[in-house]
């Protein structure tokens, strides 16, 4: 914590907003630049010099943030770039949803040396919806459930393997629907 900051700080202020250079935070951390909405103490942007936030820029904006850019750019241009050199990028919505929309979306976990893990978790349901869905595991592909697994098709369904195994405590197969000719089709095995 710098001890001589306050006297040498500079600020320009009105009743509505201020910009300060070299101001101290409440916790004693020295701030290079502090831009404040003075009618809402939470609405501010600051760049810290020392302490635990050394080199960090913090933006707090109770009313939300709009970033609009790229009006003059074309589709292949890198128009909005967030580059994290090291560490994690955490996007956390405390109450609310996350929506991502674009013409095409690619998520690539391209880490080496044991990385390269992509996990989708949900507390209720994960849905994949598209005219065509391909799931391909180069080495292995598993679909499991503690309860029911249903593979269904209104058209044709194919199972193909160089070697196939089907295990069950017991099994039934071949059951016609109501609009088909009624006959006993259930067999044990």
């Amino acid at each position, binding site marked *: *914590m710098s001890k001589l900051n*306050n*006297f040498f*700080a*500079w*600020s320009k*202020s*009105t*009743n*509505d907003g*201020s*910009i*300060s*250079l*070299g*101001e*101290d*935070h*409440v*916790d*004693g*951390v020295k701030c290079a630049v502090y831009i*404040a909405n*003075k*009618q*809402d*103490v*939470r609405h*501010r942007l600051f760049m810290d010099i*020392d*302490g*635990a*936030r*050394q080199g*960090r820029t*913090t933006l*707090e904006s*109770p009313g939300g943030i709009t970033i609009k850019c790229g009006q003059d750019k074309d589709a292949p241009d890198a128009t909005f770039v967030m580059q994290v050199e090291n560490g*994690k990028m*955490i996007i*956390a919505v*405390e*109450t609310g949803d996350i929506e991502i929309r674009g013409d095409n979306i690619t998520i690539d976990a391209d880490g080496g040396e044991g990385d390269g893990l992509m*996990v989708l*978790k949900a*507390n*209720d349901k994960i849905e994949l919806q598209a005219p065509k869905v391909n799931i391909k595991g180069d080495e292995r592909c598993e679909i499991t459930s*503690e*309860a*029911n697994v249903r593979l269904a098709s209104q058209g044709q369904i194919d199972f193909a393997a160089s070697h196939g195994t089907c295990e*069950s*405590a*017991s*099994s*039934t197969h071949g*059951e016609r629907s109501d609009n088909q000719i009624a006959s006993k089709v*259930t*067999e*044990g*095995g």
Partner: protein
Amino acid sequence: MEETLLKKYSIGRDGFIWWIGQVASADQWTGNFPVGTMPSVGELPGMKRRVKIRILGYHTASKADLPDEDLPWAFIMLPTTAGTGLGGMSESANFSGGEIVFGFFLDGDDGQSPIIMGVLEKSSQQTFLKKVPDVGFVPFSGYTNGATESRHNIKVDGGGGKSDPNATSVTESKGSGGQVKVQPTIRDESAVLEQGGGNPGSDTFTDGLKAAHENAEATGVVHSTSPCPTDNPQAGIQVEQKRLQKITKTAKKYENTFLNPLTQKIGDVQKEIDRAAKNTAGYMKKIMNKMRVRTLQQVAEKSAKIAAILPLDELSEFRDGVKKALDQIGCVFGKIMGGLKGMLGPLLEDFLGKSANTNSCGVDAMVGTVIGSTIGALDSGIQGALSGVNGTLAGIQNTVKSGFDAAENVMGAASNAIGAVSDTVGKVGNLLGGLDGGLDGLMGGISISFDVGGIEGLVSSLKSFLSCEEENKCPDIQQSSFSKGNLPAIKSSGFGGIAGAIMGAAQGQMPSPVGEIMGVGKAFKQSVDDVKGAALGVVDTVTGTIDGVTNSIDTVTSTFKSLTAPVSSCNMGPIPCGTPTLSVFGSGIETTPQLNAIVSAAGEIIGADIIDAGQINDGGLAYIDVGDDCGSGMGAHMSTVLGPVSQNADGTWSYDPNGTTIGLIDTVVESSGQGYLPSDNGDVGGDGIITANNNDIMVIAQDGEIFTYASGANIEVPVGSTVYFPTGTENAVPEGVDPSGFVIGRGLTEGSGFYYPDGGFVTAPDVSKQEISDRIEPASNTYPVVMDLGGLSVKQTGIAYNPGDTVTLSGSDSAGNTIEVTGDLKLTPAGHIYHVDIGTATGFVNIPDVTINSLTGAGANLKPYLKVRYSGDEEVNQAFEDGLVDSQVISVVDCVGKFS
């Protein structure tokens, strides 16, 4: 006349007549600024940048004799850096009215054309006077334009007020444990005007800035997700709980000082409760999903065993039944999960005023208690879901019973199907142990059915799998905070606590809080049984089952609204505010280093006593989190120095230049922070907030709700409350008060307060914080240390330093004796500092100042760090014999058990 003849009437040739005056209130000159856009320049009402001015010695102070509107207009001189508006370059003048300004007359001593050259800065002693005085030259605030005063510039100064003896007491309690009544306060504090921008000193931070900081601290903790399939939902719940507690306390702390708490939405408590309930429900959903998985596994396993022995032509019907049952069970859990938020909202709201110290014990208790309360509904739902399958099995049983041969065939098929080596029915029965009911049914005419064991069986099963989960816990969840960046992970508490909370039969084997929970669980069981009965009564279809569960949850929610009993043993009340704690975290840490913080008398952290250097993998990272339970101190930041260590006989690790293991060998105080307590001062709190100052009186009502009152408050204590007075308070035991609980001092830190079985009246003693601090005896777990200069850490190398340049460190002991040491800089050919050779010096009680003695170099940043030279009575006493003096000794609170 003579004078007139001498005047040259040329600017600058008639002398420089300067003056001091006061800018009139803004309403006298803002008319110069048009309200809206004017059609043309010619229609502008004035010249914009002019103000009315009352000049000392030229104008009377009497506004009756010379009203403001009759004062002369003054132009405002701006600096050359401000621009004039020409070429698009400009800067606004910054007047609000009331300023004391300095200027001169363009027309010499005619005094009709004043120019304002500069302004005298407002005194920090000036109070907030919004009303424009009737007399000129008297200070006022300048807030005369009707705008809302910014909290950046207004602070409240004063003692907070005293009870009004003539006022009628008002009720403060919201809980069911009684009503605390307190007389309204006459405030003796007042609004004070602060500087417009940079804060001139931390002692004058406005409430607005403090509230913004505390609000950001409370809401700024984010924990990242984990790829692990079974991450730590309790950690998430703990984050939610802490946030709720802290934001609620912050809101209360500033409720009287925010100008507009509604629009600024700091402290929208109801919204925070909703948010916490929703998010906690999400985390609990993860826990309940584990239960769902386990239940589905059980049903699937049993169905497989039953299917293995069923007649083949019955399989299709059985399969359909099981499928429906699995779907229904999934749905039952879904319904209960959907009701969690509704259950949690009232619980959290009830809990708010009763907890001051969120911890994992309390979280486990809450989670376990809520889940435990749904067991009945779960069981009834599951039984309902399985009833259809059991009906099918009953029909099959009748078929089987119609002929022994058929049964024999069934058993033979079953044996084959599961690969049993024996064809005897008994051995098949053993092999299919999990299906004992089903086989017995086939053999003895008892109905074939699923049975997951009813409530007790379900609970037992949950305990079993939750205990297993504990063994398979995933990595701790990382957190980051708004103010500190990285934070230590919340350690997984496993699922043992939750299992204990659920499992009534486990009383005595679980931590003490569980015993309390068990009591609640037992009391609750009857209502659950009633719910279960109601639910089963309507179970005959899928819809009926789900409706039954929904009704059950509604009943549970309406009857179970208090967590007070379950968490009463979790010590979630206020705790003494003590010295800061240092927690080491990071990556590759095999054995966590243990440190005690060393705090100066001025409340700054000056170093750490490394009790255990720990064991850190090569390439690992170690950070230090400076924790403060009550948020008294803030801003300290420390970094670590890793190096070779070896293990001691007692299992700890310490620095060893020949060691082959990496550990923490030094700490560097990057920022010493402020406000940390060198020892207990009698304040109590938790979750980063002081619940009660050491001179406050604290009342904990029968239902656990906590109230605090400043000195002088007259309080009517409700029946069954416990009252905690400031340490050392001489207080007669009121009539009816249990004298066995009487102690002189703050009961909380002594283990008990004053119990008021029949209620009563108390007055908070009029005593200062310092007086109470002086009464606090040093804690028994303190030990003396003496600090050495450990070295200088080069944070920035700088440039252009020359051989021969030196660095001087200057500090002092507590008696003010200067301690100074000089070292040599080690430089690269380009003049960068890469190391400092410096001797040591003993007895620093603060971090020394650094002066680099160089005529050419610039830009280096060197951080001195202190190390413990002598530690403990034995070493320090020995050092006294070698010339050590008292003023070099610092008292350290042992937070990690160095001498335990």
